């Protein structure tokens, strides 16, 4: 039985988080020595499924079998013991240790309780040779380029003799050549009988590498089929083919002159030669996969990070985008992607958060005028429907949706000409989401130029007047209103029809 059983069989997997159903009845079967690709949009459930396999989450329903044997994976350590190796997108290496030490970090060979350095190095060398990875075991990991660190990470997973290895977006930061080196390593692991689960947004790689493809959409299995003869177009169709269940109201407003103009914005390796423009009253979507450089471009326009070259102008006046202060003074506001990290000051009150970016409006000679401050904060909190609008309350006692409204209020207090929204409705409940959409529409009607990043394609499509799509740091398409999800996905995966 065990000889013919698949390496992994997950059946009927469902996972619910409070208020959200992340996975519904998903099956996944991966054979011995098979490369199995999982594709899907951001938020389709790929990561959740892999975290269940890795023991990070427990499934709400469903069973997992390894080599035909039903198991319950109690945690990440248990997963590793059962022969499941994970290689995540973010590398988990110790930069100050050597390649050999990193590879054997989980279980270094030891003698009398002391690390046996000779055996450690030999074991690492053995692993690297088996994988055909050209990395020197004595080099410090921190001194290696990312592509080689990636190989070390894989070698580290391989060193624990896994039966299954999960590679989550392993090529997202690699060039074409570097990716080829990685593929050779994957071929070797496959030949050694390891089952490989490969998650990638690069559909060409999937076609090149995979034996089978599973497509997820909205937490459900859409199709699992042989990769034989599959095309990028087939996969894209399967990834997006969904009925629009959410309705996003779109207000039609007259569109004015160009307000924000970005030309040739470049930071080598992150985004290159990005040109954008946004007109008064226009809502422009910035689409693309996570990691395509959307947030990085937005932060550089605002001045939170620096670009190496390129120009930003607002209403024709050049902006020296070197600090958020310069961005704010030029009339740019940025509602960040990570609200907890970049949006809110948790221990301060609603009032203090709302007025944080406009010290000049609430103070004279550096002293806060409390009446003026309170008036401004109440006005903004009420306008945006922060509920209850108690401005002296600490902002971290409010729910996610209200917190996001407070962040909006802070930026509206700066009276921006350009509002950049990075995932403005992430992690907020349905009611607050609809409030935020109305706020965006209202701002556009008042002539604000809006650049919106969202990973939710239906949202981008419904709200935007125009859409730029980023693929690996470059604008791969500019699409008019009325573009389909398929058009966007094609551009986002770099599969632009000539």
């Amino acid at each position: 039985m065990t000889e013919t059983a698949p390496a992994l069989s997950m059946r009927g997997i469902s996972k619910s988080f409070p208020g959200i159903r992340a996975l519904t009845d998903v099956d996944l079967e991966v054979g011995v020595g098979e490369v199995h690709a999982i594709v899907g949009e951001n938020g389709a459930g790929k990561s959740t499924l892999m975290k269940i396999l890795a023991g990070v989450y427990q499934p709400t329903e469903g069973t997992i079998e390894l080599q035909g044997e039903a198991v319950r994976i109690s945690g990440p350590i248990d997963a590793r013991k059962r022969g499941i190796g994970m290689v995540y997108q973010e590398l988990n290496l110790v930069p100050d240790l050597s390649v050999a030490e990193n590879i054997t970090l989980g279980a270094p060979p030891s003698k009398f309780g002391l690390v046996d350095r000779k055996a450690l190095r030999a074991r690492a060398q053995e692993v690297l040779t088996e994988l055909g990875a050209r990395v020197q075991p004595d080099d410090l990991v921190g001194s290696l380029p990312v592509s080689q660190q990636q190989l070390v990470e894989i070698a580290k997973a391989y060193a624990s003799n896994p039966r299954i290895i999960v590679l989550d977006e392993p090529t997202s930061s690699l060039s074409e050549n570097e990716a080829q080196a990685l593929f050779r390593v994957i071929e070797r692991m496959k030949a050694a009988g390891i089952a490989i689960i490969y998650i990638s947004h690069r559909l060409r790689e999937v076609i090149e590498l995979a034996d089978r493809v599973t497509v997820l959409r909205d937490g459900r299995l859409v199709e699992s089929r042989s990769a034989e003869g599959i095309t990028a177009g087939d996969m894209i169709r399967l990834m997006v083919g969904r009925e629009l269940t959410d309705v996003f109201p779109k207000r039609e407003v007259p569109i004015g002159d160009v307000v924000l103009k970005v030309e040739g914005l470049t930071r080598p390796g992150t985004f290159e030669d990005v040109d954008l423009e946004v007109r008064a009253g226009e809502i422009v979507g910035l689409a693309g996969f996570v990691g395509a450089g959307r947030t990085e471009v937005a932060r550089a326009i605002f001045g939170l990070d620096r670009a190496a070259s390129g120009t930003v102008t607002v209403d024709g006046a050049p902006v020296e985008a070197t600090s958020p202060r310069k961005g704010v003074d030029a009339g740019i506001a940025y509602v960040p992607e990570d609200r907890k990290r970049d949006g809110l000051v948790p221990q301060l009150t609603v009032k203090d958060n709302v007025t944080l970016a406009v010290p000049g409006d609430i103070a004279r000679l550096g002293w806060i005028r409390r009446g003026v401050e309170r008036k401004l904060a109440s006005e903004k909190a009420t306008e945006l429907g922060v509920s209850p609008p108690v401005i002296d309350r600490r902002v971290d006692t409010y729910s996610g949706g209200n917190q996001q409204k407070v962040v909006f209020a802070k930026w509206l207090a700066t009276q921006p000409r350009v509002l950049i929204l990075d995932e403005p409705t992430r992690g907020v409940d349905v009611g607050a989401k609809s409030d935020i959409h109305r706020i965006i529409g209202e701002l556009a009607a008042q002539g604000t130029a809006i650049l919106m990043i969202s990973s939710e394609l239906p949202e981008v499509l419904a709200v935007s007047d125009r859409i730029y799509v980023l693929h690996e740091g470059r604008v791969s398409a500019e699409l008019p209103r009325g573009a389909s999800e398929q058009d966007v996905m094609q551009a986002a995966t770099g599969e632009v029809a000539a």
Partner: protein
Amino acid sequence: MTINIETVSTDRVVKQGFLSRYGTTLAMPLGILMLLVVGAFLSDRFLTIGNLTNVLINMSIVGIIVVGMTFVFVSRGMADLSVPATVAVGGILVLMLDDVIGTWPAALVGVLIAAIAGVVNGLLIGYAGLNPVITTLASGTIVLGIAQAFVGGVIVYGQDPGAKEFLTGRLFGVVPVIVLIFLIVALLGHLALSRSVFGRWTYAVGSNPHATEASAVPVRLVKAGAFVMTATLAGFSGVLLGISLQAARPAIGAGYEFDAITAVVVGGVSLLGGSGSIPRAIGGLLFVQLLTNILVLQGVPSEPQGMVKGALIAGAVALDVYLRRRGGRE
């Protein structure tokens, strides 16, 4: 720009527990009250105007430093360990220069040189991003070394008994001048922290530096500012100490950093930044001073006194962590 939104959101505010809401505010006044009662029981001399005035005089010099140290704590700058050096700079310079340029100009020079040490701290910590504890430990050691080389390890004596008489005297024969100076500094510090833009930024930086920076606040300047302020105030304390003793040696400031940190921590100002206030820190100082006073009146030797202070710090930090956890934050 006005927007009218009819809210459909059903979000509710998260409820806060009574303890995490009022516990930290009420604990200190209650603690001080308790000490007053206990002290009165234990000693006849404790609850007298004379004794309590002495407690106030004793806490004034370190109290001025506590004001600066509170800014450091609130901005998540951990602590300033260069205080003994900047106190010495103030004390030595004022006494070395008083017969050359006069006491008050000499005082100004002392405070300014201490402030320069603070600027160096601020540049290294705020702008270069070095660890505050290590940086101030190093800069303090260096500055103290310079001071020692300067005076050759001997005691510097003052030449202006008039200034001493003024500082140690009493206004209208009642209020000790030194206490008055401390209260003015504390009031100004309190206003700056609670009512100025800089103070608001100090809280914001300590609570979440990333979001604060993204809100166009000059985060590095704010971090640096707390250390400049602490060094300036420590230099000022040193000047007052030098004048009132009319003698100063390089070790004159030893222990002030520890006493100031103790006061701030016992006052419930979080080492993790973002909360606390000058009144709370001074409440902490008063608590420690009263406790020490009671121990002294009871004839407890100084070694056990140190143990009690150490235990107080550990207890206060543990309570802070506990309350934060209860508050629901990681």
